[in-house]
């Protein structure tokens, strides 16, 4: 064996050793779990007794008979739309105002980013108090401003509960989007704006012809991340409504998976719901990446 080949083998071995541990963790906590879940989705199992093979029955029940699945899928899509649109829209607006480097801007960026690092449980409890229909600050504030007609049971009324929960997630995530957008904005060469200014381009033309196209990669990243994150949304829904309460009308896919598996001891059915969620998220993410790709 030549010296070069020996050195190459030695390097390859070193690389392998470096990735071995993360690969092992990935295999154990991701691959094994997902493959196991896939197998379980073809069974009926209460978690304690014997598994009973049922073939595709779980999947046919989900798509043809389960009202709970339809409601939770609809709520999940609404949640995703609200989160993706508003978190990124507000994040972009904040980024545009706070992208310049100054002491005040640095302080404001920190303030807006703070919710992203707090515990979701703490945030859930906090907003539970804010949204309380009788004692909560939101309704009290509306009353004080003479807007008592806008008082609601924010987490109790089926028509608005899912939006109320989604807005909590938006509040948490705005800072995160803002930070990524600021990073994207700072990548845009200043000369482009100077050239546009010389050519007589107004603010809107500058924004739509220069800023947004060059922010496309950031937008794509955030849209995909928001979509994946919101399809898996569990913590805020669970904490704020005790698991999609209000007669199940704030149920999302993640809470449905949890309840079917652990509260109702239907682990096989819960596994099949997980597989459906995996496919849905994958398809939507791929679709987004295709639609938002750089066509140049």
């Amino acid at each position: 064996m030549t010296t070069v080949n020996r050195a190459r083998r030695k390097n390859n071995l070193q690389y392998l050793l470096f990735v071995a541990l993360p690969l092992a963790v990935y295999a154990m906590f991701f691959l094994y779990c997902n493959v196991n879940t896939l197998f379980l989705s073809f069974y009926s199992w209460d978690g304690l007794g014997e598994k009973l093979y049922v073939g595709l029955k779980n999947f046919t029940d989900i798509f043809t008979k389960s009202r709970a699945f339809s409601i939770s899928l609809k709520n999940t899509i609404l949640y995703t739309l609200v989160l993706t649109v508003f978190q990124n829209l507000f994040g972009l607006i904040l980024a545009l105002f706070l992208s310049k480097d100054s002491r005040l801007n640095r302080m404001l960026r920190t303030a807006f980013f703070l919710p992203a690092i707090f515990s979701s449980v703490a945030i859930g409890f906090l907003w539970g108090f804010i949204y309380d229909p009788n004692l909560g600050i939101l309704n009290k504030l509306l009353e004080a401003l003479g807007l008592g007609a806008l008082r609601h049971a924010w987490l109790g009324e089926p028509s608005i509960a899912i939006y109320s929960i989604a807005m909590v997630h938006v509040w948490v995530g705005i800072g995160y989007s803002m930070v990524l957008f600021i990073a994207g904005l700072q990548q845009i060469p200043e000369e482009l704006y100077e050239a546009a200014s010389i050519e007589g381009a107004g603010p809107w033309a500058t924004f739509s012809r220069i800023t947004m196209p060059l922010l496309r990669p950031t937008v794509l990243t955030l849209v995909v991340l928001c979509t994946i994150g919101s399809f898996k949304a569990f913590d805020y829904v669970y904490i704020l409504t005790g698991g999609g309460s209000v007669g199940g009308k704030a149920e999302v896919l993640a809470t449905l998976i949890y309840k079917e598996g652990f509260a109702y001891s239907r682990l096989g059915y819960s596994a099949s719901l997980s597989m459906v969620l995996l496919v849905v998220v994958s398809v939507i993410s791929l679709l987004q990446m295709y639609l938002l790709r750089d066509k140049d």
Partner: protein
Amino acid sequence: MKRLVCLVLALTLSLAMYSVVANAEQKTVNFLHWRTEDVDTYNQIIALFEKEHPDIKIVMDVPTQTYEEYYTILKTRVMGGGEDLDVFAVHPDANLKLYAKNGTLAPLTDLTVLPKLNAGLLDAGKVDGTLYAVPQAMNLEGMIYNKKMFKDNGLEAPKTWDEFINCCKAFQAKGIAPISIGVGDKFPPVWLLIQFLDEARDWDWFKGIDTGKLLYTDEVFKEVLSGIQEMKPYFVSGFEGTSYDQSITLFANEQAPMLVCGTWVVGQLASLNPNLEFGNFTIPYPHDKYATRPNLNPAQCFGIYSGTKVMDEAKLFLNFLCDTEAMTLYGNRSIQAVVNTEVKLDLPALNDIVEQAKAGVMSNHYNTEVPKVEGLNQEIAARAALGDDVGTILQEAQDELDLVIGR
């Protein structure tokens, strides 16, 4: 300096080794339940037990008070091999049947304390005739009411449906929201459902839900949900988003004269507002179609994990837990009626409950082996409280149940 550090390390190691050896002689019994409000009381009981049995250490774990969360935790511990599972609480419903039939619970027929316990309530812990879990306390579901607010408005605890509605109207006329209920947490409305069903039907009837012999679309469910909807105008403002805890606070602060809850809340109310004068009554069946009768709900039932390595010690602890001394302490401190017939409690309200319980019937909703039924019961009651169409609610619930039972 080096010597001093070595000496300190050596001492520390020795102490650690000593505690390991000392603890190795002690058997540990893990004790899992959901009664977060009784932690102090159980600590006192545990202290008494450990004084009598210094070779046994009880490690109590109360991770949550929420039904679904508790069973998630329990199930994951069982599936994980039950290393830290010895004595644990279980509801006498489908979960008891599930864990008993899967061999998770050990039979308890040889417990020495059994003759002292209410025989009728012991049935709640039996599966196919074998006792697997022992109830410690009992509750009645119904309406908790503020005696002073009733008296100040010239009212008494209602005995008929019309009297009940008239009480509600009387309070409403004076600008007082009559009924505090935490629909925001979904489970409180089910106590109305359960209570009405127990007045309408007996224990054996509910078993039919497992096989499709009893359907959610049957007339009695329609009557019951319609009755809940007739109560809706008298719920506090914002009830849709009011949590269970907030509903208790509203009642304790005397902002509502009635609270939809069971008698397990008595201790909590007494501590929130020691001056509160309250009692409970059974809500009459809608339009008095059936006689008013209280329903008996065994509270936490305790069982022993069949795979425990400390079976003798666990049984010793369970015997102690249900015996007269511990139950007297528990009943007086947690302010709950207990299942031990030798216990005499201090609080008159508890003796009222025991008195009412004599005419009570075992709550039939426990008589199912399908865990999803509990969730569906909660859902139909919550949706009825929110004003959804009764027919639609029940049909959709039955469709969901059909998926599970394969009907």
